[in-house]
């Protein structure tokens, strides 16, 4: 058993749930890994606080994922709203070399995000970029999905594209692929940066 723990926090309507399901689909269906996705169910429609978690078992030998919720410390924490910054503390993110990452949206999180500075983190104005580049904040998801694909390498790019096809209406597929690529690019930039910073 080799659990990979992901938590995404923000507001209902930001697409958190979809993002988490896409991650689960790509890992569980395309890559045939064990996976569980759970969510703050009920909060979506009326825009309250929302979260989603995905646990992926990277160990192909396992039979089932024991505990279905993500366990602290997380491998990946995504923070998309100001209110959620409260839960970011040093201890909640893994510190091993190849894992433990915070991704946050600098377009909805205002002010200095102190906690972030203490860990490996990627802050991008995701929703703003989505609105500006693609005309709608929903593309923020796909951008994040692109980032995720590159950063974690849990599933292949093909699996990712396959997943996008499953989740978005065919009319917006092209734009979504673009957003995905944009995310990938941002992630690669970040990885390079990270490597440089480390070396």
């Amino acid at each position, binding site marked *: 058993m080799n659990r990979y723990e992901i938590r995404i926090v923000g507001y209902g309507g930001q697409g958190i749930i979809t993002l988490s399901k896409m991650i689960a689909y790509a890992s569980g269906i395309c890559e045939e890994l064990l996976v569980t996705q759970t969510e703050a169910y009920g909060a979506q*429609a*009326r*825009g*309250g*606080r929302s979260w989603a978690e995905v646990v992926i078992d990277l160990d192909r030998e396992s039979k089932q994922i024991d505990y279905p919720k993500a366990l602290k410390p997380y491998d990946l924490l995504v923070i998309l709203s100001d*209110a959620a910054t409260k839960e970011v503390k040093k201890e909640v993110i893994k510190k091993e070399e190849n894992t433990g990452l915070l991704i946050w949206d600098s377009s909805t999180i205002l002010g200095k995000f102190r906690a972030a500075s203490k860990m490996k983190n990627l802050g991008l104005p995701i929703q703003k970029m989505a609105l500006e580049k693609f005309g709608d904040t929903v593309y923020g998801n796909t951008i994040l999905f692109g980032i995720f694909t590159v950063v974690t390498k849990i599933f292949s790019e093909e699996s990712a594209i396959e997943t996008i096809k499953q989740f978005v209406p065919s009319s917006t597929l092209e734009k979504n692929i673009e957003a995905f690529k944009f995310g990938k690019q941002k992630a690669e930039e970040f990885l390079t940066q990270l490597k440089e910073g480390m070396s």
Partner: protein
Amino acid sequence: MSDDVRYPSEKPEHPYFDSSFSGMLLGTLVSRFCGGCGYGSIGQLYTRVFEDEKLDPKLYPLVIGIGCYSQIFFLVHKNAQKMLTLHGRAPAVATGMKMANPKMKPIIFSGDGDCLGIGGNHFIHLCRRNLDCILFIFNNSIYGMTGGQAAPTTLYGAMSTTTPYKMFEPRSDGVELALAAGASYVARTTVAHPRTLMKYFKKALKHKGTSVIEVITPCVTYFGRKNLDNLGSKGEKGEIMDTGGKMFEWIKKNSIHINQAKFMSKEELFNKYIIGEFRYDPSKSEYSEEYKKIQNIAMKGD
């Protein structure tokens, strides 16, 4: 609930805002309704009437069913004694209140699902008894709270999560049922007619007997966004109703006054809302007063 964001409020404040429960409780408004939901307007108007008429909160308990509108408790007058009941049971609770303390006049908030779905039996028996109280039916043509299933009032041809092949069942008509069951004041209006709504409400406050006021109100999230505004009139090209504004327009368009309706055919009235006053009979004897007579007989003897 604990981490709703609080919005700063501005001065001068809305003239009735401070009279509301959330005005009192939080100093600033936390509406739990979607943007464009008509329940906000209703809560607001209720507070307005409550304040204007200087109603004694001890005599007008507010009995609320279960549905999206339950959350209206944030918006109604801060002094109103409000209680949430179970899904469909508000009329029965109000009956117990009234008969145990006949000075009261309970006001019931119920949804179309609450009142005409699960609560249908209590509804017709409340009307039959003609118990002195006011029953508002909020008809948004959908089950909002549980995420957009069909209601007994859902219009023909509408999409909902439980009618993925479009609604095909004939709808329930709260007004017709109230009339058949025997309520003595029966009216229907819409949130898009706020002045009429207040007028009916005030009239019901003075009436002795069961007043049933059905209010057509928009659910943007689960009805509007999933449906086109040509539901009511086939042939026309429809537009999706994804804002409160569009739904208000549609409601106005889809409502026909009773006087006008008299001259229209069944086909023309299909899927339309007939609004207006349907019965006003102050002569019908009221339940608690009749019971009082029995008490008088019983207490006298021996």
